[in-house]
């Protein structure tokens, strides 16, 4: 009876999750010859990834880009999350909801709207010209790496707010009062008590944002133009125009390794330890 239950429970997840992912891994050791897949094991794809002068630099640039996105998101999200914790009861959760609701709105539409805001005729350029910061509309913000950086940051801010808010909320009030009683200023209390205790939330937030940013293909494809070439786009092209599925699978494995590392770092350092006083 319990064996039957186990078989039933495992059947679907194994068939539709484990088998496809395992197959994907196996594929990365195949090769392509004139449009057909050669089912013979080879390390060729990985050798090509490491030795070719294109892939590793793009890979590295994409990682740097996504780390930057994570940093921007945290710098913006932290003060907002902090403000939330200073609010009382109902207001706190109402504002939190307000900042999380945009997550559920259509991703594709948001990218499109942000692109039109960043564009040459967009609102950003109009505002900068009106403020006298720019002499004339600039193409700095669209169809390049900047555009990807800005768009991903805007899209992913809510993912940074939530974990930071949760870790700030868990800091016992007694610690803050103790710090105040011992004569610390508001700034000292923040730097010596609040900030260190909220770091796990910051690490989780960074890990979330990084993983979502590096796995995204839609944003770079839509706002990146020709110069904003990210790893996700190269990977995707292997399944489209380049038609080299095994090589694409190998690139995916490289991506998966980075993602798993980021998740593990988030798990290892992102746990709220020692705050449950």
């Amino acid at each position, binding site marked *: 009876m319990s064996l039957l239950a186990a078989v039933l429970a495992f059947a679907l997840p194994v068939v539709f999750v484990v088998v496809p992912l395992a197959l994907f891994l196996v594929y990365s050791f195949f090769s392509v010859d004139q449009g057909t897949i050669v089912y013979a094991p080879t390390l060729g794809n990985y050798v090509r990834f490491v030795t070719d002068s294109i892939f590793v630099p793009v890979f590295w640039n994409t990682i740097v880009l996504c780390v930057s996105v994570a940093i921007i998101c945290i710098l913006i999200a932290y003060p907002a999350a902090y403000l939330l914790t200073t609010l009382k009861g109902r207001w706190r959760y109402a504002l939190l909801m307000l900042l999380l609701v945009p997550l559920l709105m259509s991703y594709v539409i948001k990218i499109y*709207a942000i692109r039109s805001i960043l564009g040459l005729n967009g609102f950003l350029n109009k505002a900068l010209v009106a403020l006298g910061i720019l002499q004339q509309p600039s193409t700095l913000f669209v169809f390049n790496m900047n555009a990807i950086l800005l768009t991903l940051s805007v899209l992913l801010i809510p993912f940074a707010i939530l974990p930071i808010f949760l870790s700030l909320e868990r800091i016992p009030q007694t610690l803050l009062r103790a710090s105040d009683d011992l004569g610390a200023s508001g700034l000292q209390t923040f730097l010596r008590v609040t900030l260190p205790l909220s770091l796990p939330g910051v690490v989780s937030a960074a890990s979330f944002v990084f993983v979502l940013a590096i796995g995204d293909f839609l944003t770079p494809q839509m706002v990146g133009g020709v110069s904003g070439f990210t790893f996700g786009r190269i990977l995707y092209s292997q399944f489209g125009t380049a038609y080299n599925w095994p090589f694409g699978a190998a690139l995916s494995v490289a991506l*998966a390794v980075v993602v798993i590392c980021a998740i593990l770092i988030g798990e290892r350092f992102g746990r709220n330890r020692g705050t449950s006083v």
Partner: protein
Amino acid sequence: MIALPRPSTLFLAAVTALVAVLLYSPLFVPIVSSFFTISHGDVDWSSPTLSSYQALAGNNDILAALRTTLIVGLCTVVLSVVSGTLLALYYHGGRSGRSILQFIIFLPFLMPPIISGLALLIFFREIGLERSLLTVVIGHTVFVLAIVYRTVLMRLQSMSRTLVEASYDLGATAWQTFWRVILPNLSSAMVGGAILAFALSFDETMITILVTGTQSTLPVRLWAMMRLGFSPDINALVALILMFTVLLCVLAARFLVPQQMAMERS
């Protein structure tokens, strides 16, 4: 939190306002465009019109995509709620291999959708399953399963064991206990999970692009149209979808939040 001095409060408020502007301005662009005509980035505020909504009613292409999205969403909800609930019960029962199973369930949610999607694409090709709405539903179910599973499991774990024990003490069989005690207690978590699953499925783009056949769902249709730019009726649709999504959020909050608040209080 201890009240900070004034300048810092102002700073916090300013940054939070900036966050709100950043998050909401992309949502206002299509809404404004659905009521006003925009040319070269300038909004013509003088003449609000509902013409884009009328155009939408006649756009069969988009309406078909919307219908497809709803069908896929409903199938995904049914499959993910049934299997997610069963898997949560399996885990909660302390059965063998449960942590590995949980890890497998979370995998597609943790992996970038491009990887889950490509893996499924190769899998469907190797087993000779033609790409169709069926493959889309499978892709979506695999993706949203973790959310339903987790929502139901959290409710199961917060449920008092005494309820089940009382049911057995009163002479109920295992089946009766399941149908009369456990399931009613899980129902609101299941509804909440279903709403989240539907919302995720409704917006899922990457996996769908990879595993869909000839029929496209709404996000995929929009994605394809984006290269050319949107016609006004798309903005009308987007405005409607935004309202619908807000409604879904409110519903999901109603089903999920009260219990959690009640739990915190007790």
